[in-house]
């Protein structure tokens, strides 16, 4: 792997991490309770980006992430608190990092972002300064008395003793700058694993000053019970260093699986100390005394802890505490059971990290594999036709088995490219949040069907059109809070992104409960633009489809989000380029649903092969409902476009009429109807010979045929002939258009 390839890995990983930062920030915004774990995750993401950027010497990223990391560290240590303003600031920082990385990837200069960087750094600095120091500082003597009077320890004289002026280190508050408190308990297997605390402390000593270290000996067993290979040691350290928490954690890196490590920041709050004390199993009083003695906590901090404790009487509840216990055993047991059940539930619901079971593969390698599988599919189809022509049963049997295997191989290969659409949907959390903030609207984004999978190349190309649809829904669809209340709707609008599979396609819906499309307004606008033919009537769908015309907008005011009439035409064009369609369902005052139908994959399909004249055609097998022999009695006297199929009317058309200007003489007298379904409608295609199932690799037609409607691509048959893969959605549209033109002509004549 050369440097460029490793850089590529950095770009991909950073993009994943930035995505994770964004979703974590958004989740913190919507649910700020219990933020610790998520803040840790945020910190780790930023730290990883910083580390990786450092390897490549991307100094700008390193410098910026370092500042961000500091702020995040203070947040998770509880020194600063999380507000919606700070989340917005972090989101901006995330965007900035993303832009810089993009610049590096595209070898662009980032000078234009100097100002932005400066502003963000200032904001971060300001944010750091904002919070007041955690503990107020009243004089020492009254504290001793107060603690002595009010403490629940029942032995105030001990505290008085502790705070007596003759204990030199307690007489005055020491300078707390850069003083870390490290509390570490080594696990029983430390020595067995060949590890030793001594070199760790030596290392710390080398990079800072150990102000005090206290070896906890209370866990040492009696000699008779002592297991000479087990470790019973624990340490409390006061460490002075300008390094960050990460450095201290790294010092314990080698022993991290054999230690229980807690690091308290120099500027920790009383709550941090309280939390620390509750997490340690030692007798609290003993531990507090040790900490006071070594200067890990100051008397003022102790007072703050005790004050806090009076409010939250939880940290003293260790089993060895001196507190009288009046809790009935049964209740405690139930509590334990409940809490362990909760814990198990928590573990079960926690998503397992995806990374542990996946590997990263270069997309070009995957594409190459799929190309090869495609070639294999074509060759196997050739072999299949050859074996049929040879009429050799044993050969046919082998080919049949081979085809089955190739079919499975093809499905697995295509599956490799399938990704759930959920990831794309989740990106809209941010889009919705930002737009709502800008518009002052309140909207709940609901996401369902995120697990629906589709080809990666389709996912990549669908993001832009979807963003546009979402923006439109938020800007034009969903009303203001006041308007919604007037209309009797909930004050918060709902935007629903939904995905599901339907006969060989994936359907993506963007649904809002807003004001809906106004048929009259669109019609009027279309009239103004001379798009309306007054001689004919327009269906609802046709009127709605005007919004897809370039420059068409009914918006009264143009915002920077939408309203210029540029966009819906691009949306349609993008989706059509993916062989997809857009469908609009809308009810005025109730809302709009835009349905986007896309093929599952762009490369290989199970097709149905048939012939018209001497030409071969393929349609996707999922869209074929049935094949019936065409009989003249199907025809309904007057109407030549509808047949009576078992009592049901079925519109049909001859493909030969669509593709060939003149009737091609067919030797075969028997004709067939191929019944196909698209968007819950069934239509018959009049064709000549039916040749059956056929695995097809769709080859693009080339630039010269870009404007050719009705054909999605081509494929090569075993006999060397070329078959055209039909694009049914556009064929339907083509037929409808022709019929309408015919009708118009007829009307004019009559």
């Amino acid at each position, binding site marked *: 792997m050369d440097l460029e390839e490793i850089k590529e890995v950095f770009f991909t990983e950073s993009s994943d991490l930035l995505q994770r930062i964004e979703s974590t920030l958004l989740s913190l915004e919507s649910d700020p309770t219990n933020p610790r774990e998520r803040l840790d995750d945020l910190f780790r993401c930023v730290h990883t980006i910083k580390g990786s950027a450092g390897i490549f010497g991307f100094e700008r990223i390193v410098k910026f992430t370092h500042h961000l990391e500091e702020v995040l560290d203070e947040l998770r240590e509880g020194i600063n608190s999380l507000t919606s303003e700070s989340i917005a600031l972090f989101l901006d920082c995330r965007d900035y990092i993303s832009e810089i990385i993009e610049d590096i990837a595209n070898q662009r200069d980032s000078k234009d972002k100097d100002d932005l960087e400066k502003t963000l750094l200032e904001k971060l600095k300001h944010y750091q300064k904002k919070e007041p120091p955690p503990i107020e500082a009243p004089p020492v003597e009254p504290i001793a008395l107060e603690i002595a009077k009010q403490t629940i320890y029942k032995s105030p004289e001990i505290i008085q003793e502790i705070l007596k002026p003759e204990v030199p280190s307690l007489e005055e508050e020491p300078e707390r700058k850069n003083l870390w408190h490290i509390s570490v308990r080594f696990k029983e297997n430390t*020595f067995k694993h060949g590890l030793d605390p*001594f070199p760790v402390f030596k290392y710390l000593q080398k990079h800072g000053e150990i102000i*005090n270290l*206290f*070896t906890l000996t209370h866990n040492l067993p009696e000699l*008779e019970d002592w297991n*000479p290979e087990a470790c019973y040691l624990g340490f409390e350290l006061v460490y002075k260093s300008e390094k960050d928490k990460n450095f201290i954690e790294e010092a314990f890196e080698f022993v991290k699986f054999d230690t229980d490590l807690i690091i308290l920041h120099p500027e920790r709050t009383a709550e941090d100390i309280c939390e620390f004390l509750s997490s340690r199993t030692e007798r609290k009083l003993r531990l507090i005394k040790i900490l006071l003695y070594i200067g890990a906590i100051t008397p003022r901090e102790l007072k703050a802890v005790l004050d806090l404790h009076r409010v939250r009487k939880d940290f003293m509840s260790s089993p060895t505490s001196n507190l009288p216990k009046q809790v009935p055993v049964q209740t405690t047991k139930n509590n334990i059971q409940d809490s362990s059940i909760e814990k198990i539930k928590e573990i079960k619901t926690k998503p397992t990290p995806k990374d542990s079971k996946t590997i990263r593969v270069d997309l070009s390698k995957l594409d190459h594999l799929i190309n090869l599988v495609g070639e294999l599919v074509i060759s196997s189809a050739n072999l299949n036709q050859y074996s049929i022509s040879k009429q050799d049963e044993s050969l046919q049997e082998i080919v049949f088995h081979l085809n089955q295997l190739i079919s499975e191989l093809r499905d697995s290969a295509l599956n490799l490219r399938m990704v759930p659409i959920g990831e794309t949907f989740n990106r809209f959390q941010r889009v919705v949040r930002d737009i709502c903030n800008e518009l002052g609207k309140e909207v709940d984004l609901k996401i369902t069907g995120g697990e629906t999978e589709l080809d990666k190349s389709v996912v990549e190309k669908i993001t832009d059109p979807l963003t546009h649809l979402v923006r439109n829904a938020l800007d034009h669809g969903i009303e203001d809070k006041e308007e919604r209340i007037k209309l009797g709707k909930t004050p918060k609008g709902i935007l629903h992104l939904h995905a599901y599979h339907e006969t060989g396609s994936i359907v993506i819906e963007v649904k809002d409960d807003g004001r809906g499309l106004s048929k009259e307004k669109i019609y009027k606008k279309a009239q103004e633009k001379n798009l309306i033919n007054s001689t004919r009537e327009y269906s609802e769908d046709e009127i709605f489809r005007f919004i897809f015309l370039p420059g068409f907008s009914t918006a009264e005011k143009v915002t920077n989000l939408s309203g210029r009439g540029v966009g819906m035409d691009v949306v349609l064009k993008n989706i059509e380029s993916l062989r997809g369609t857009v469908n609009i369902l809308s009810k005025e005052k109730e809302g709009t649903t835009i349905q986007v139908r896309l093929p599952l994959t762009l490369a290989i399909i199970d097709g149905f092969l048939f012939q018209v004249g001497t030409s071969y055609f393929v349609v996707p097998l999922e869209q074929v409902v049935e094949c019936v022999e065409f009989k003249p009695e199907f025809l309904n006297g007057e109407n030549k476009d509808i047949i009576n199929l078992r009592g049901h009317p079925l519109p049909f058309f001859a493909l030969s009429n669509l593709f060939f200007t003149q009737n091609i003489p067919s030797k075969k007298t028997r004709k067939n109807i191929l019944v196909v379904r698209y968007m819950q409608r069934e239509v018959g295609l009049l064709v000549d010979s039916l040749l059956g199932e056929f695995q097809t690799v769709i080859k693009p037609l080339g630039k010269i045929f870009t404007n050719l409607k009705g054909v999605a691509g081509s494929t090569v048959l075993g006999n060397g002939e070329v078959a055209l893969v039909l694009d049914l959605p556009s064929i339907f549209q083509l037929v409808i258009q022709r019929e309408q033109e015919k009708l118009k002509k007829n009307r004019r004549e009559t």
Partner: protein
Amino acid sequence: MDFQLEPTTVKGEYKVSIGGNFTIYLLEKWKKFILENIQSIDTLILDLKHLKEIDSAGIQALLITKNYFRRLKKNFILIHHPACIISHLDLFGLVGFMEDKISISKKDKEIYKFSYGIKKLPKVLKKWI
């Protein structure tokens, strides 16, 4: 390495010399040795003059032995501390716990401060911890 109990001129006082390493691999033997001989010992002097290496497991063994002797109201005394043991006792702040006299050279005084742990603790607090 086997531990040899040598009687001194004082009744009930014995000396054991440790050479080489006092690390995790020896500790099972050490435990056995102490348990087998404790009956006859009032004071055990551990001569560390020839000790080359000790690890934290070895230090922990000394702490446990010290506690054991204390409980039985007997004496466990270390003498001739080599550098390897002084550096451990200094860093872990255990000089006060072991309560042994340590003689060090002038040069070593600059290296070892003996400023950590229980040694600094005022007597009034010592009994509680």
